[in-house]
């Protein structure tokens, strides 16, 4: 049979690849996972959407703040970071997709047959996602802050990065987004399905936050501080809560609560991942 295909499988499949080449390392796994995350479009779209929504909504909220009267409890930092309420869901979606897409596309089978050390592989993926998420979130959070303050400055209600608690809150906004992303990553790995992962992430971060509003006041004072998004949100506020509001932990302990939720999802997922059939 005539064929137009060039078949030259001999002529050295290996060419001059030394036998010692090709060892699996954590550094190699990191490079590999970075290539994966930067080589699909969904990463860029998701991060761009997060930036646009957080900065855009923050700008709108800051512009709007200028039209209201404000007491001493007004928190211009929080006002400019208001878009984080939506941003948390977008980064959560990316966290889910980074791992669930391996399952939905079947890539996980190729990944694990070339890199069967599951613990190394998943740790590298987690680290790469966390770093990418944190850097993008940091850029987003600072941009939202500065744009928001610029819009409020003409009305003399803005603050500066050097004011008390402000730098902590702006960096905290990035940490908050990153933790929400990691929570999504854990849920994605646990459920191995994009829709299920995104659904449970939105449920945990958003729906729960809304539902607790309808609980009796006495319940809220015990529950609110443990709700992931409510607790996580404390880190990007610069003013103490007004009298009579539901008690919360301080900014850092509250952030630790959110991290605890994310850690719970990730640890459970990794334990199962190492044991389950892929």
């Amino acid at each position, binding site marked *: 049979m005539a064929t*137009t295909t060039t*078949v030259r499988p001999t002529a050295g499949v290996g060419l001059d690849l030394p036998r010692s080449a090709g060892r699996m390392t954590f550094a190699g796994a990191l490079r590999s996972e970075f290539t994966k995350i930067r080589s699909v479009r*969904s990463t860029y779209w998701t991060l761009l959407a997060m930036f646009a929504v957080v900065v855009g909504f923050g700008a709108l909220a800051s512009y709007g703040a200028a039209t209201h009267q404000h007491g001493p409890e007004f928190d211009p930092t929080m006002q400019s970071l208001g878009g984080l309420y939506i941003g948390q869901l977008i980064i959560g979606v990316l966290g889910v997709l980074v791992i669930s897409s391996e399952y939905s596309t*079947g890539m996980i089978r190729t990944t694990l047959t070339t890199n069967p050390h599951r613990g190394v592989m998943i740790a590298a993926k987690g680290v790469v996602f966390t770093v990418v998420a944190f850097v993008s979130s940091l850029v987003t959070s600072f941009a939202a802050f500065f744009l928001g303050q610029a819009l409020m400055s003409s009305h003399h209600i803005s603050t500066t990065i050097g004011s008390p608690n402000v730098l902590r809150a702006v960096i905290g906004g990035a940490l908050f987004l990153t933790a929400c992303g990691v929570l999504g990553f854990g849920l994605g790995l646990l459920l191995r399905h994009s829709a299920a992962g995104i659904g449970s992430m939105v449920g945990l971060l958003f729906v729960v936050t809304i539902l607790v509003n309808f609980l009796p006041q006495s319940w809220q004072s015990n529950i609110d501080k443990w709700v992931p998004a409510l607790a996580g949100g404390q880190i990007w506020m610069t003013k103490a809560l007004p009298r009579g509001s539901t008690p919360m932990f301080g900014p850092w302990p509250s952030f630790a609560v959110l991290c605890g939720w994310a850690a719970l999802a990730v640890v459970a997922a990794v334990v199962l991942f190492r044991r389950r059939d892929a």
Partner: protein
Amino acid sequence: MIEAQGLTKRYGDTLAVDDLSFSVEPGKITGFLGPNGAGKTTTMRLILGLDRPTAGRVTINGKPFDEVDQPMRQVGALLDAKAMHGGRSAYNHLLCLAQSNNLPRRRVGEVLGLVGLTSVARKRAKGFSLGMGQRLGIAAALLGDPQILMFDEPVNGLDPEGILWIRTLMKALAAEGRTIFVSSHLMSEMENTADHLLVIGRGRLIADCTVDEFIAANSQQNVRVRTPQPDLLAKLVAAAGATVREDGDGSMVVSGLDPTRVGDLAYDNAVRLHELAPVHASLEQAFMELTASSVEFHAGVPEAEQPVLAGKGA
């Protein structure tokens, strides 16, 4: 060398792989044969550590695959041509795999050239045809210049050109001294490529031998005969202990007698012969005979497609 001992995998109530023990020897093509659902893919997944065995163990050069230091140098596998992210370019797909094992970046270009995908290296895999996806999967398997290559149903769905390409590639790889472990439910494919056979049915090993041994042991000698007196000849050969089957177009196939005996019988009884030819038993036939009882899902094919003239037996 791949070695399995008492390998067993149960999914719920289904016993997919049942106490398999075998070894795949280096330097030859070992065909892994079985009907659909026999447990071939599961066995390969167990070898690669994708699934955990319920019992038993399987090692690659003495170690379970997930303890191997240089996974891509040891084993290249193509289980499923679609096991890749369609949004990633061919180049980046291979690059991320190479990086995970610290293989030099130039290997990506080399294997792309080897499988003939250089011109589409920057295209997203989503747009690839099945044949191109298969080539990309093979490129990935070859990245580490591995000693062992595993292919699960590599010719499934390919056009004749693609089939020829894969067949030639496997032979060339084996000629370089590599171990090739290839599964198929197509016997004709194994007949063309394999040196050694592992046959499974319903998760159990039913044969472990060379292709020639397999055919010799599992199929009878057949002779094709064409005669104007079919009824008489059928009676004669049946009396001599053979089975006769009508083969359409006026010829018949005699099983259990060699051509000389059939010719002599006809001559002694003045039966006119228009054709007398040995029929090479194919691996296909041998396989059907051997696995007839182990096909998991019988398709409900009518019992005998061709009418049996006489002496139904065997």
